[in-house]
Each structure stands twice: as structure tokens, then as C-alpha cells.
């Protein structure tokens, strides 16, 4: 129910006011009181735990002492780092590969090879609702800290295992990474330009199979918590296999193959289902004097005009009435030969323009269009900052940091970013004394023995 003041606002003001991402901290958090352990590395597992942490779960990230997890040593071209890596290594920093996958978490360092560490894990498990784990399948079981041991300590635990190929089946011993999921799952094969246009199968720029796999696991975890708290009272074991994500994403291509034997191929920046609905190359750079080669490049601009009227308008803008006559209906335009004729004709119009000029011409005629923005242009859009999907955060450890916000907005119980991440072992004392009953000298002793 909405109070009177909100009812009388314009719709946009109403949205701005209920979704105001600068004003989230006085609202309750969805997962307050839920505790999650994240014994994860790289992106797939950590991102899953991070999505829970955004919603307010107390998420304890467990990593190896001193150097932390491998993703901390991953950064583009070995250039940007956030310092320090840990209190033991102040001269080293955390690479940006760690960014975006670990916000809001508590950081505990633990060496699983020591028996005391196993004891600590069991104490944490007894008090936790969720465990996210992505060690090789069966490793935690062998160490005595897998689902089968945890469920005896805590039958309400939702235990999410994530990994490459899963714990069973012919490929279970294979190692996997995000791009293996993309490559072997089929994502590469339909992205990029066809061979005839000089292209190769291409990866998606993001670690999509990791980040998306984490998201779908987080959804499943919340659904299982819902089932636990409202229906059964029971936790359970969940498994997510990264390569599976690709099949889920490409399910329509799989159906097509099953029906017709057609193996979908790459179609570059055009769209097999619709025409015109593609990205055009523009002839001029928007920043010809820039020193950055990324900005000296010529621009690209997306345009969509698949309805007949829109296509006519588009042909008017590009000054090619012939085209509108030749391809009057969508059925005429969408065939592969027609597409190969139409897009180059449209690109002639763009050949002496920047992407902004092309965009202005198209939107001026009421068409859907969007220049291809690079990450700097996107980061400078007021839209994203206003909506909080990008934000400048006053991070307690690293100072001013530009970071992504929560992907979705909730009017009454929004997620929020509290810190981007912390150094390795930053919360050792808090977690061990709060949850495991260790005193100050015992914690110092654990540190001396390199258990934490």
C-alpha cells in the first residue's frame, strides 16, 4: 500500500522516491540474520555468496592465509591494484579481478590443511544457514567438512556446491573455467562474425558463465531458504555445474538443432530473427585527437527498425527510397541475403559520420538507436549513477572507489553495497571470537601457527 503523498506524485517522481538508492540504509535487509559461509575462489562461487551479502546475509569468506585467493593476483595488464593485500603483505595489493565478486563480506583466513581449521569450519557450519563451496567435488567431503558432515551438525543448512562439470558423470574430473564453459558449452560458436566476414567464434567480454552461474545459484538458495522456512524446515544439497549454464542459455538453439539438425552459426552484429536490428559501423571517430587507441577507433551505432513503418522511416533518413521499395515487409528483409544487402546500404549513410551523428539522425526520426558506448562513456552516464547501478563508494579500506551497485531495485528492502572488499583475514578476530569462542591469545597463537 502506498501513502497519499506518493500517490499524488508523477510516476517518475514516485519511482525516484521509492527506489532512491542514495537512501537505502534506513530500510530493512531481506537476508538479515542469515549467515553464509563462502569457501570459494575465482568468480563463480564468490559471486554467488556476494549476491547474498548484497541482500544483507552475513557472509564469511574463507580464503588461504597471507596471499588469499588467486583472483586477488589477477588484474588487467598487471597495472591497477588496491592496497594493501593483507596486514602481513602491505607492500602488495589486491588485483581488480577480485572486484565485483566479494562486496559486503567478512574475510577470514584459514588453512584447511591444519586440523584446527577443520574444527573452526565445523563451528561455523553449526551456526550457518548457507554454505557456498567450489573446491573440486568430493574434496571437502574427504576433509570432513562437506555436506554429509555438515548436515549432521546442522540439518537446516542449504549447501550449494558450484564448479565446472559437477561431481558426477563422465566429465566429473575435468577442471573448468568460465571460458571453458563458454567454449565447450557452445556460447563461442554463435558469437562473432562469420568466417566470410573475417571473423572467428568470440568470447563474451565478461566472465558470464561464472557471474551468471553465481546468480542462478543465489536464486536457488533463496528459493530453498523460502522452502525451508515456510514449508519443510530442512536444508539440502544443491549442485551447479558451470558448463550447464551454456546449455540453459542456448536452449532455443538446442531445440532448433533437435528439430531440424541446423547448427546455429555466428551472424556478427546482425540479428537472425529481426531486420533491421543491428549495429552499424560509422566512419568517423568521436575522439579523433585522443591519445587512447580505444577512443581513436571509429564508432558503432545500433539501430532497430524491423516494423515496416520504421523501416520506411529509416530508409528516408539514409536517403535510400529504393531500399524501402525493395524490402517492404519484414519477411522480405529478414532473409540472410536481404540482410547482407541492407546493412551495407545503411552503412554507406554512416560512412562519413560519428556514432553520435548517426544516433541523432535516427532518434530524430523516432527510431530506436543507441551508440556503442565504451566503458568510459558508460561510466559517465548520469543515468547509471542516479539509479545506483554504478556508484562512487566511500570504502572503509580503499577510499573513493567507483563500483557497480546491486543489479535490481526493491522499494522496501533494497540491497546495498557497504564495502567493495577487505584485505585477506581482515575479520579474523571478529569471526573467531564472535562465532568460535576463541580468546585474543588463542587467536594470536593460531596466527603464529599459520592456521589463520
Amino acid at each position, binding site marked *: 500500500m502506498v501513502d497519499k503523498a506518493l500517490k499524488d506524485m508523477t510516476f517518475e517522481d514516485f*519511482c525516484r522516491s521509492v527506489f532512491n538508492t542514495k537512501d537505502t540504509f534506513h530500510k530493512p535487509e531481506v537476508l538479515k540474520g542469515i549467515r553464509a559461509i563462502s569457501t570459494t575462489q575465482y568468480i563463480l562461487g564468490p559471486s554467488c555468496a556476494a549476491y547474498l551479502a548484497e541482500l544483507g546475509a552475513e557472509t564469511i569468506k574463507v580464503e588461504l592465509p597471507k596471499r588469499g585467493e588467486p583472483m586477488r593476483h589477477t588484474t588487467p595488464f*598487471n597495472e591497477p591494484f588496491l592496497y594493501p593485500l593483507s596486514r602481513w603483505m602491505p607492500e602488495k595489493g589486491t588485483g581488480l579481478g577480485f572486484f565485483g565478486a566479494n562486496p559486503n563480506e567478512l574475510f577470514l583466513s584459514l588453512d584447511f590443511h591444519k586440523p584446527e581449521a577443520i574444527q573452526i569450519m565445523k563451528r561455523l557450519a553449526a551456526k550457518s544457514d548457507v554454505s557456498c563451496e567450489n573446491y573440486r567435488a568430493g574434496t571437502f567431503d574427504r576433509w570432513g567438512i562437506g555436506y554429509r558432515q555438515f548436515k549432521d551438525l546442522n540439518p537446516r543448512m542449504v549447501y550449494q556446491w558450484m564448479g565446472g562439470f559437477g561431481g558426477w558423470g563422465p566429465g566429473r*574430473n575435468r577442471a573448468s573455467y568460465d571460458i571453458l564453459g563458454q567454449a565447450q558449452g557452445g556460447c563461442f560458436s554463435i558469437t562473432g562474425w562469420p568466417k566470410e566476414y573475417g571473423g572467428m567464434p568470440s568470447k563474451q567480454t565478461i566472465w558470464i558463465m561464472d557471474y551468471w552461474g553465481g546468480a542462478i545459484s543465489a536464486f536457488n538458495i533463496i528459493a530453498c531458504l523460502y522452502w525451508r522456512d515456510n514449508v519443510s524446515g530442512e536444508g539440502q*544439497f544443491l549442485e551447479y555445474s558451470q558448463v550447464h549454464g551454456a546449455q540453459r542459455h542456448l536452449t532455443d538453439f538446442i531445440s532448433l538443432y533437435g528439430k531440424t539438425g541446423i547448427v546455429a552459426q555466428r551472424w556478427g552484429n546482425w540479428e537472425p530473427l529481426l531486420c533491421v536490428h543491428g*549495429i552499424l559501423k560509422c566512419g568517423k571517430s568521436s575522439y579523433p585527437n585522443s591519445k587512447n587507441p580505444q577512443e581513436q577507433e571509429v564508432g558503432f551505432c545500433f539501430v532497430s527498425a524491423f516494423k515496416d513503418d520504421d523501416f520506411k522511416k529509416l530508409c528516408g533518413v539514409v536517403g535510400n527510397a529504393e531500399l524501402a521499395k525493395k524490402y517492404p515487409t519484414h519477411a522480405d528483409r529478414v532473409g540472410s541475403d536481404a540482410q547482407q544487402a541492407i546493412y551495407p546500404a545503411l552503412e554507406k549513410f554512416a560512412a562519413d559520420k560519428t556514432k553520435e551523428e548517426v544516433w541523432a539522425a535516427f532518434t530524430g526520426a523516432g527510431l530506436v538507436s543507441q551508440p556503442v558506448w565504451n566503458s568510459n562513456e558508460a561510466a559517465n552516464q548520469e543515468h547509471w549513477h542516479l539509479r545506483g547501478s554504478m556508484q562512487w563508494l566511500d570504502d572503509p579500506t580503499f577510499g573513493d*572507489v567507483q563500483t557497480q551497485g546491486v543489479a535490481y531495485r526493491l522499494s522496501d528492502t533494497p540491497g546495498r553495497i557497504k564495502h567493495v572488499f577487505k584485505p585477506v583475514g581482515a575479520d579474523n578476530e571478529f569471526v573467531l571470537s564472535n562465532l568460535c569462542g576463541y580468546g585474543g591469545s588463542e587467536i594470536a597463537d593460531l596466527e603464529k601457527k599459520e592456521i589463520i
Partner: protein
Amino acid sequence: MAESWRTEKKRPKIKVLPWPAIPAPTVEEVYAGVDEKRKEYSLWVESAVRQQFNADKPESLNGIRVLDMTTNMIIGHWCSSHFSELGAEVIMVEPVGGDPLRKLTPFGREEYMFTSKDGEKCGARFLAEARNKLSVTLNVETEEGRNLLKAIIPQVDVLIENGAPGHYDKLGIGYRQLSEINPRLVYLWVGQRGQWGPLKDQPGAMDPVAQCSMGFAHGTGAPVSFGGTPTRSGWWLCDQVGGTFAAIGAMAALYAREKFLGKGQFVECTAAEGVIRIIDYNWGWNGMDGSVRPRYGNWDLAINIYAVNPCADGQIMVGGGHDRLWFRIWRAAGKAKPYLEQHICEDPKLRVVTDRLPHYQQVETYTTLVEWMKDCTRFQCETALQEEEVASGGVSFLDEVCEFPHYKYRGHVRLLDDGEYGQVLLGGSSFIGQKTPGRIKWIGRPVGKDNEDVFRSLAGLNRQQLASLKKGGVI
């Protein structure tokens, strides 16, 4: 490691069903020669989560009712698929005549469409995300249509729409009005870039607008110096990622409603912002020094080796940034061409993991690696690398994916015997779990198939009323 199920004959020459062309391996074949302890764990997991037992198990979202009123975009359908796979009752509310997406088929080819029992054709794109959902038609532009919607809203838990910003509000069926009727309603709006903010009024048509407006398309593809251009994803990636985040948002709202809030709320998620969330370090890096994320083709900016490179019959992925795997990769290459291993291992600039990341080091690494790979097939590379336990795999096309033994065995790709559309091959639910796994019961429904059932049972309409609404173009 010996994987007896692997064969080089990966591309079966089949045209149509029956699938699979090569049977999936049996349990005995899969675990032959594995020591008892390891086998015990695998068999336990398999018994806990193998999908053939799904129908015996409960569903975690049973009892939730979702109205999916989105059209023209995949984001909403993708979102509601999460709920339908986990047991919620999802009703697709389409405009009279059906969602325009139903008509889309690659290159306009009708022969690629699926035909229902009564002869109605539907494209694969739409059908793939109609799983387990009911189909009703409703014209909310009419007064009667809106009244009918309001009549069933008290019985709905989640409503998903993607109208133009403020359109539903203006019609009197937005969050502000419907939450009066049903305070427990979770109302979710999905779209490309949002219903408020400076870009809201620039129309967004489907997914590429999102891909282009947040840096994704610019960053995908090869660099200019390699002959590349910005590239869009071959599938509607932003819609699908955004749809998953939308589902998390709606699920979180349901959880909060039951746990402490006692009421529903307004939820919003967009395709662009879903990908903004997951495009790793772009914003952090840009915030430090204004950096623009470059396109880097099939290599990775932040890990070396972590790439897909050409080989004799396609492309092969290999990954291993840290020392243990780094040296194993070169050992695999060195078995065929020892001078390559020597060249890399003797280079002092490549000894420390982070020192390998600058661009010129990556060029040196991959040119050396491809010197080995160019003479080997994907299968040979994969075999050599897997002997060293390095993650590697060929770039697979859809036919190879559908026949990959691991996927067949685990049900990632599966055949559904659908009541309307017959035998359909599809990507299975990714919700694999011990007690409440996801499942697929049917692939989809023809337009308005469930009009009578739904409107009778939720709104109490009788035969005459249904007929008159139908005549008036309301349903």
C-alpha cells in the same frame, strides 16, 4: 587421466531426431576403474541429484502464482522461467493474438518453427522460455481487460510487466493501484534501461540497446589491430542476465514478505544493469584513472594463460594462470616441440605470475603456444593438456554440444515429450538439487490455451461471459 568415453568422432552426421545419435555412457562405463572411495562420493551425489528422480520430489515454490505480462522482450519470460522451473504456477498473459515474439524465427523461415497439435506455429526463441507456463490472452488496453486483471490480482503473488515507463500506472493497473487491491503483491517491472532516470524515454527495443549502452558490445570481439570490431553477443545475453537478477529481486521480495515484512513491494530490474553488475572491474578501473576497457579478443586482460586460440581444426581453450598449471601447459607443448617449452621456461620475464600479464608478454605467450597448437586438432590438444590435468576444451558447435557425453549423461541437454509440440530437444533446468530440484514439465502452450481454465477458476467467469469477452477482443 583416462577418459574412455571420449572419442574423436564428435560430429555425428545426423539430420533430425532421434537424439542422441550416440547413446549416453552407462553408469558402469563412467565409473569403470575408479577407486572405491572416489566412486562412493560420486555415486552419492548422483543418487542425491540425478534428475530422473525429480518427479518424486517436492517443489520449493509450489503455491506461488506468477503473472508474466511481459511481451516483446525475453527478459520477463526468462525471469518467470526461474519460477516455473521451481514449481510456481506461472501464467503468461499475452495480448490478444499472442506475444509478437512467437512469430520470430531465424531468417523468417517457417520450417524452423514448432507446430502445436492444432496447427499453430511458434518460433523456438519464444517457446524455449514458455516452459511450464500457462497461456492466457488479455487486452489491458480495454476497460474490461483491466477489470478482469484487477479481479484476479488478489490471488497473484508476483506480477511481471515491461510496459513503457509509467504506462501501467496511467492505465490504473500499476504498482500504486494494484497494491491497494493486494498489499501482498510483489510487482516487478523489467526493461532495458529503466522506467526512471534521464535515459528512460529513449525507447529501448529488446536486448542490443542494453548491450550497447553499458560497454558490453564495445568490449566484445577482437581489437582493431587484429581486424576486429565491437561485437554483440550471439544470444540475448543482457536480457537473460537481467532476467536472472530480476528473479532474484522478486524472490527476495517474496522471502521478505513471508519472513518479516508481511507485504509485497515494487521491484525493478533492467537488462543493462544486470550486466553492469557483472562486468567485473570495468567501473573500478575506470574510476581509478579513466581507463577504457579494451577489446581483447579471445584472450584475457587479467590472466595469462586463459584464452581460446586457433588450432588445426578450429579453436581450443586452455587456462592456467598460476605457476602449477603454467608449467604443466608448457610441458604438454614441450612433449611435441621441446624448443617451445624451453623458450618460455628460460625467459626470466615470464617467471612470476603477475609479470606475465602485460600485453607484450601475452603476445609472446600465445604466439609460442599456437606454434604447437596449429598442427594439432582440438582433440589432440585437449588430450595432451588433459594428461597434464589442465583445463582445456575445444570450441564446440551446437551439434557437438548436444552430443557431448557429459551433458547427455547429466541431462543438461534432454528430450522432452511434450503434449502439444511432440519431441523437443532442450537445455534442461539448471536447478539441480537434492530435495527440491527444478524440472521441465512441458515446453509451452499455444496462444490463449488456458483462457477458460484460468479465468473460470480465478475470476469465476462463466461460458457466456467468456464468449462475450472473446467476441469483444478482450481475451
